[in-house]
């Protein structure tokens, strides 16, 4: 599987339903045969009855009936095969999409730390959409058209193999032409694509940075640049259309006229020396009209093929990457929320320890605050508790059971987290709290009230039905955190992790978050990454982290009573404040 060409691998998705594929191919074969039969019948009709003047109504009607039959057969089988090929294609894309999405979802969080969201989304939607074109418009078209050309050539050979040879010449000539076109147009095409993506990027950036531009009075300069870019794009496209018109359809049409000339000449020349059948030339002329179209269509789909292969490579790179989050199936339960960390060591990159031999216990229902500098390992500690990463050494236990013994569901339900800048979905407040699960209105309102969000929601124009903007911009940072709190509380967690907002939060909302926390105290084990002094002072215990090590652990008063970082910090503060 590893070294397989992306095309073969993409093809394998289409081969999964062999039965349907076989049906489609058989139908296509019938359709092609029925299609090419028509002109053969007309040839028979002309040469056997019309030209010699044998007027035999019955035989002639029989030919007409056969013609009608083949025509309807061709139409019906063509429709049926096209639908089948499309079902195969859609099914293949759907499978691929689901696989890519599931893979992305299963990636460890560290993957999302490294990969820009935009490119990942592009993998899942745009790339698979390009691949869809491969199935729908490339493979299907290729099979159909190649079959059609072969069918026509066979029919021609049956009629007159010499004339067929003339038409056969058309295939290499057009193929060579298309090759030449590809070679010449590829750089122009590439240039045009680059320019259009530059244009879009420029436009996007201008909209994003419009304020800066206007304040700096740079709009005229940017307008000039944009127009220049747009004109350049126009120029490249003009070059492209010149090439197109020189080499594509007009030329193929002209070659077709040349072919007609060749046919007529050789037919006429033959007739000078030996008798010929008029019907043959009639049939050839009819076939000729259907001959060039498939070839042109194939060439026009080549760029789609190229795009799909590139997209396929990217998608497979994602699909083949290592997935390190094991799925767990265990049935331990969290009933009270006691937390224990024992000699924990953790490193993101195996070289530098972010957590170094940390041990502590939080009895059920207690409120612990973690403090420490940026980079001291506060968030890492909570991420480990959430099992987002696996520690290299040591154990984490909840209710005296190792973390690995809980099912994903149990752990997620009972250990809730409130992030500093929570993600708000572009749907109603209600949906943002319920997160797609069937909670009743009263449960939602209860959670919102517990979180202190209820009164804010009531002030919104449509209350709980108010649709949140992209990224929740119609809520303040503080309110967003309250919403995240409500979202967590609705699951009745036993442990709640809260990452207190560092900045941009007003004292009113801050007080509300604290109030909500104080009400939960005793019922839920609280682990708060604290930035506010008021929060810290209220905690049962304070964990002071420094460079991944737990340097102090105790209540506010205990810590003040000991020599150490905390007292040092605190004394310095009170001293300074006192002086002013």
């Amino acid at each position, binding site marked *: 599987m590893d070294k397989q060409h992306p095309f073969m691998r993409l093809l394998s998705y289409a081969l999964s339903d062999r039965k349907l594929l076989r049906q489609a191919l058989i139908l296509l074969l019938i359709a092609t045969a029925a299609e090419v039969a028509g002109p053969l019948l007309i040839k028979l009709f002309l040469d056997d009855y019309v030209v010699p003047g044998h007027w035999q109504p019955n035989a002639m009607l029989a030919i007409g009936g056969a013609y009608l039959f083949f025509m309807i057969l061709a139409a019906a089988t063509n429709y049926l095969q*096209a639908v089948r090929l499309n079902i195969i294609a859609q099914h293949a894309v759907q499978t691929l999409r689901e696989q890519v999405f599931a893979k992305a*979802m299963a990636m460890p969080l560290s993957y999302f730390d490294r990969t820009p969201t935009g490119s990942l989304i592009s993998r899942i939607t745009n790339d698979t959409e390009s691949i869809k074109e491969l199935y729908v418009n490339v493979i299907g078209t290729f099979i159909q058209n190649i079959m059609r050309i072969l069918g026509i050539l066979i029919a021609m050979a049956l009629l007159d193999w010499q004339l067929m040879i003339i038409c056969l010449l058309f295939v290499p000539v057009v193929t060579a032409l298309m090759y030449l076109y590809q070679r010449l147009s590829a750089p122009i095409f590439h240039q045009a694509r680059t320019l259009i993506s530059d244009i879009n990027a420029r436009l996007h950036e201008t909209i994003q940075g419009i304020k800066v531009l206007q304040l700096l009075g740079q709009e005229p300069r940017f307008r000039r640049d944009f127009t220049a870019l*747009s004109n350049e794009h126009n120029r490249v496209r003009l070059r492209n*259309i010149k090439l197109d018109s020189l080499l594509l359809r007009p030329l193929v049409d002209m070659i077709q006229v040349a072919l007609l000339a060749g046919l007529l000449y050789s037919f006429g020349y033959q007739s000078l020396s030996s008798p010929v059948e008029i019907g043959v030339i009639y049939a050839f002329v009819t076939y000729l009209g259907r001959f060039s179209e498939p070839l042109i269509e194939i060439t026009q789909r080549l760029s789609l093929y190229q795009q799909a292969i590139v997209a396929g490579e990217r998608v497979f790179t994602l699909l083949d990457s290592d997935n390190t989050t094991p799925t767990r199936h265990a049935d331990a339960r969290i009933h009270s929320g006691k937390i224990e960390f024992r000699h924990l060591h953790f490193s993101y990159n195996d070289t530098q320890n972010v957590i170094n031999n940390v041990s502590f216990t939080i009895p059920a229902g207690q409120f612990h605050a973690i403090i420490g500098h940026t980079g001291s390992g506060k968030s890492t500690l909570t991420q480990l508790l959430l099992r987002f990463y696996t520690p290299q050494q040591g154990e984490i236990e909840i209710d005296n059971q190792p973390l690995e013994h809980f099912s994903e569901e149990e752990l997620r339900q009972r250990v809730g987290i409130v992030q500093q800048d929570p*993600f708000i979905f572009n749907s109603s407040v209600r949906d943002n709290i319920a997160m*797609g699960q069937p909670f009743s209105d009263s449960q939602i309102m209860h959670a919102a009230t517990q979180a202190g969000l209820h009164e804010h929601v009531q002030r919104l124009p449509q209350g709980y039905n108010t649709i949140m903007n992209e990224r929740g911009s119609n809520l303040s940072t503080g309110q967003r955190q309250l919403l995240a709190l409500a979202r967590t509380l609705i699951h009745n967690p036993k442990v709640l992790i809260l990452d207190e907002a560092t900045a941009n*939060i007003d004292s009113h909302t801050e007080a509300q978050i604290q109030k909500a926390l104080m009400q939960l105290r005793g019922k839920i084990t609280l682990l708060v990454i604290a930035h506010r002094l008021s929060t810290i002072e209220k905690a049962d215990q304070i964990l002071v982290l420094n460079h991944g090590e737990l340097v102090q652990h105790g209540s506010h008063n205990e810590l003040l009573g000991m020599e150490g970082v905390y007292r040092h910090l605190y004394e310095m503060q009170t001293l300074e404040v006192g002086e002013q």
Partner: protein
Amino acid sequence: MYNGPTVDTIWLTTSMRILLKLRWFFRLKWRSYGLSFAALLAIAGLIMVPPWITGRIVDAVAQQRLTLNDLLLDIALLMGVGVLVYLLRILWRRQLYGASYQLAALLRSRIYDHLTLMAPAFFQHHNTGDLMARATNDVTAVEMTAGEAILALVDGVITGLVVLLVMAVMMSWKLTLLALLPWPIMGYFMWHLGNQMHDTFTEAQRQFSLLNDKTQESISGIRLIKAFGQQPQTLASYSAVTAEVSRANLEVAKVEAKYDPTIFVTVGTSFMLTVGGGAWWIHQGELTVGELTTFTMYLGYLIWPMFAYGWTLNLLERGSAAHTRIDELFNTAPQIGDHGTLPAPATTRIDMAITQFRYPGSEHHALQQIHCTIPPGTTFGIVGHTGSGKSTLINLLLRQYEDDAAQICIDGQPLHHYPLALLRSQFGVVPQDPFLFSVTLAENIALGRPDATLDEIRAAAALACIDSDILAFPQQYDTLVGERGITLSGGQKQRIAIARALLLDPPVLILDDALSAVDMGTERTILNHLKAARQGRSNIIICHRLSAVTDADEIIVLHHGAIQERGRHGQLLEHDGWYSQMFRYQQIEQQING
């Protein structure tokens, strides 16, 4: 789905109206369009020749009167026509598509120009994706109207008429009538399929955009999904969405798959009738085999005009909708008038007399009773919690919003008496959320002064404490920012933005919470640099971290849009208000958070 004839007529006329709306462009490019039409007409006439020659040769063969000389002459004529048609086809393609491309470039530039005239309020009400769509997809749709649709319309009509005329007048009107019997039926089916196509396609696009939204949301919210153990639900709902997408696409494919068989059956029936009827008339001596051959070849030429009919309608409809959306944009007048005539102010004395200000569409007062003066050369601090109106005050000062009840004067004259560009050149603003363009670091700093020398740029960068950071990059000042370049930290971005403003050396410098992501030590250094570099000029500093305004000449504390406290740092600390509490609080926090 059945659409009544009236609905269809209305739809047709509204779609056609786009051609009237694009009149100005057709008039502008009348030469291109004229040439194209002339070429198309000539081609329609010329392509009548090959079938005619074919018929002639067939008849000559059938009647055994063909001579090599005649044959060679006919072949030469055929080739001549082929070459001529080739050249004419190149001609119209370049003219017609060239013109339509130009329309696209023109519209795109106009949209861009127009967007740069819009005030921030406009961008709050239109999301980026929607605006982008107008400049991309909608422009393409209008371009298709001016190119493909015009082609299909004109060429379809010309070719159709010429072929019909030649068939009916020069060959046999009886055979023409017979051959055309199935065509109206096909016309009906094509129209019907067109409608089905439209409906299914719209649905497919809707489903795809749902899929896009779903993906976007899931990936952006991955942490949340994992934290809440929502993967199974997310996967299930994603599967449901993809299944819907597939279903919708299959519906499109099913309709699409009907096109070819419909045409095939119609054309086939038409051929059968032609050959059958032709045989009868040949039998009667009214027609020759050669003529029949010519006739069937002409019949093949009618397929395109039938297609063109549906194709044109489809394109016109899409183009029309797109053009309406683009027009909507053009009809949005700039929200801030620019009619001032005063020369640059002599001093930067700022007087604010704001009785009240509300954002359009909002019921809450964003600001009320703000009266203050910023004498030239002083530093003015604005503090207060989130949403207290700090940035609003700056928005008003920069005339990004305006209101009669919010009077602001510079040098004693209301803001709107100055030309907008002149007014804004008085200020150097470092916004809350600094925005960097995907160009080099040097170009980003020199954004407001593209002619600045590298030395000047470096001097400004040094003041903003970013010079050494930049020199640490391999390409230094030529380092690209953004997707194709480096990603900067929030603090680095802020410092670039500060350098950008300092390079302008503006009479008034505004720092809108511009130091929030910079560490305390650097903040101090930058403030000291500012003090030295901006002697005699004004600074307005908005901040959360009060340490940034301790040196200000006056500080106002905003609360719910009104001034709650005001004075110097020392004065404010003396009474136990929000300021002194917050200051003490922050001092402690700063120690805790390092």
